[in-house]
């Protein structure tokens, strides 16, 4: 390259770096896209529905909610729960004609990441209306929470499989370490389940609608100590979908607008032996999302926090900045997460702990309940008054091993 060209390139690079620093890392996509449709499948046991049919049901529901039709979709997003050749199979089954697709799979947090990627694709002009679907039937199929079938080429497999790591004990390792480092108690973790159950009582579709007490949680059988049965999410069938659209399209629709103002994604793993279980990947995805949105955790009125287990919520609340590291136990205690009682209403649909964990993946339901709040369409008993800012954050994978956090910050327009 000629020296003059090189010099100009370096100058442009410095200017772009300054712009990124001045306006936030993904300023190019901030506020350019809206969630215009959202739909949660009502089923919790899909004995007569195929996985593809569930994806189609939720796609149809989200389109009807938005007031859009099949032909309007030109972008499609799905993850590993989609059957066959993922996006390709679902695009064929649904009859979609798209010019942009993304089948990034990072476990249960994938839909949260997909909404962010859809906003970026829209900002880049790659599509105008994006559909994100999630669906599955592990309950009807009798699947357990065991990790998916082993991939013999996975480099970690031979150093993990002999020790029988499962989803439950891989989250329990984080709970144990948190208790050791910060004095967190089983009773404090139980408050997270108690709060979820207070919300689930109002959700007619929730699997577990009975309000439970701290004592019931800590007296339920140990699954993987120190986690009890009631520290774990439900196993359910079902799914959900959201539609993300360009601003002009969002403004043409007769629905409240939910603007995507910040997003972040981050991986974390065992670090080749440099392991620290005191924090999750949300410690990275959260600050990126808040910086882009230009707000702080104190501004958030409602929080959807992926609750595969109670410990998943506790660690994320700290990592997202709702309380200092190590203070999560005290923060969640005494009903602080219960709508109408506490300072931070969370998972007001009952969450994965009580309502629904479709396809063993809780990301889509987190987005949907946040959208309900920003549209003032949550159940009246749990609706947060004047909810203008909400967060949806999730952890996919295994908290004590490789996982991916995705965080979205949404604003009522």
């Amino acid at each position, binding site marked *: 390259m000629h020296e003059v060209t090189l010099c100009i390139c370096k100058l442009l690079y410095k200017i772009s770096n300054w712009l990124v620093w001045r306006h936030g890392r993904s300023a190019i996509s901030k506020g350019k896209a809206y969630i215009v449709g959202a739909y949660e499948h009502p089923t919790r046991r899909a004995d007569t529905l195929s996985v593809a049919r569930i994806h189609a049901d939720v796609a149809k529901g989200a389109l009807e909610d938005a007031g859009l039709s099949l032909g309007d979709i030109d972008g499609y997003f799905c993850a590993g729960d989609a059957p066959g050749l993922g996006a390709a199979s679902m695009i064929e089954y649904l009859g979609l004609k798209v010019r942009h697709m993304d089948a990034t799979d990072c476990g249960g947090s994938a839909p949260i990441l997909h909404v962010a990627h859809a906003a970026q694709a829209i900002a880049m002009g790659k599509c105008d209306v994006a559909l994100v679907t999630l669906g599955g039937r592990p309950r009807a199929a009798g699947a357990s929470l065991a990790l998916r079938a082993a991939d013999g080429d996975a480099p970690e497999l031979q150093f993990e499989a*002999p020790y*029988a790591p*499962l989803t439950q004990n891989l989250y*329990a390792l984080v709970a*144990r370490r948190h208790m050791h480092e910060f004095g967190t108690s089983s009773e404090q973790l139980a408050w997270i389940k108690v709060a979820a159950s207070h919300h689930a009582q109002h959700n007619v579709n929730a699997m577990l609608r009975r309000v439970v007490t701290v004592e019931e949680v800590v007296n339920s059988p140990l699954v993987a100590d120190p986690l009890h049965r009631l520290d774990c999410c439900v196993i359910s069938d079902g799914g959900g979908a959201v539609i993300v659209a360009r601003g002009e399209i969002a403004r043409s629709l007769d629905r409240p607008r939910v603007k995507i103002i910040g997003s972040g994604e981050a991986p974390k793993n*065992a670090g080749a032996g440099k392991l620290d*279980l005191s924090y999750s990947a949300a410690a990275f995805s959260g600050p990126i999302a808040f910086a882009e949105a230009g707000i702080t955790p104190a501004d958030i009125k409602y929080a959807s926090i992926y609750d595969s287990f109670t410990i998943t919520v506790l660690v994320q609340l700290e990592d997202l900045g709702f309380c200092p590291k190590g203070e999560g136990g005290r923060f969640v205690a005494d009903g602080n997460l219960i709508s109408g009682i506490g300072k931070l209403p969370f998972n007001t649909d009952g969450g994965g702990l009580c309502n629904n964990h479709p396809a063993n993946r809780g990301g889509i339901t987190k987005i949907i309940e946040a959208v309900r709040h920003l549209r003032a369409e949550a159940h009246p008993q749990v609706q947060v008054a004047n909810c203008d800012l909400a967060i949806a954050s999730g952890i996919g994978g295994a908290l004590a091993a490789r996982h991916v956090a995705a965080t979205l910050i949404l604003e009522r327009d």
Partner: protein
Amino acid sequence: MVSVGKRKIAAPSPHPETEEYWRAAAAGRLLLKRCLACGEPHHYPRAICPFCLSADTTWIEASGRGRIYSYSTMGVAEAAYTLAYVTLEEGVTMLTNIVDCAECELRVGLQVKVVFEPCDGGQPVPMFAPA
């Protein structure tokens, strides 16, 4: 606390870059990988250093001593087993099981030493017992 698993231990399927690790395990030695370019030890072992991408990595023998970083016991009676992370003296933390702890009190920080338990098929797998 019951923590001696009587479950069947899944046999590892070594790749060419990890055969040495399992040969050493069969001889009762726990190996780590160390990078000759940046000096960092790592686990699980790779041919290429995950800290600097140098291909100049070598096997080193670990002392086999360490402390429990975290643990969780799952299952009941004969099927119970304890998943754990153990931080070795070399500073590397590895996923493992704690065994031979029927009479002991499991706790974070407990000193442990490597033992080798035969898996389904006979290959010895490194696990840890109270030191």
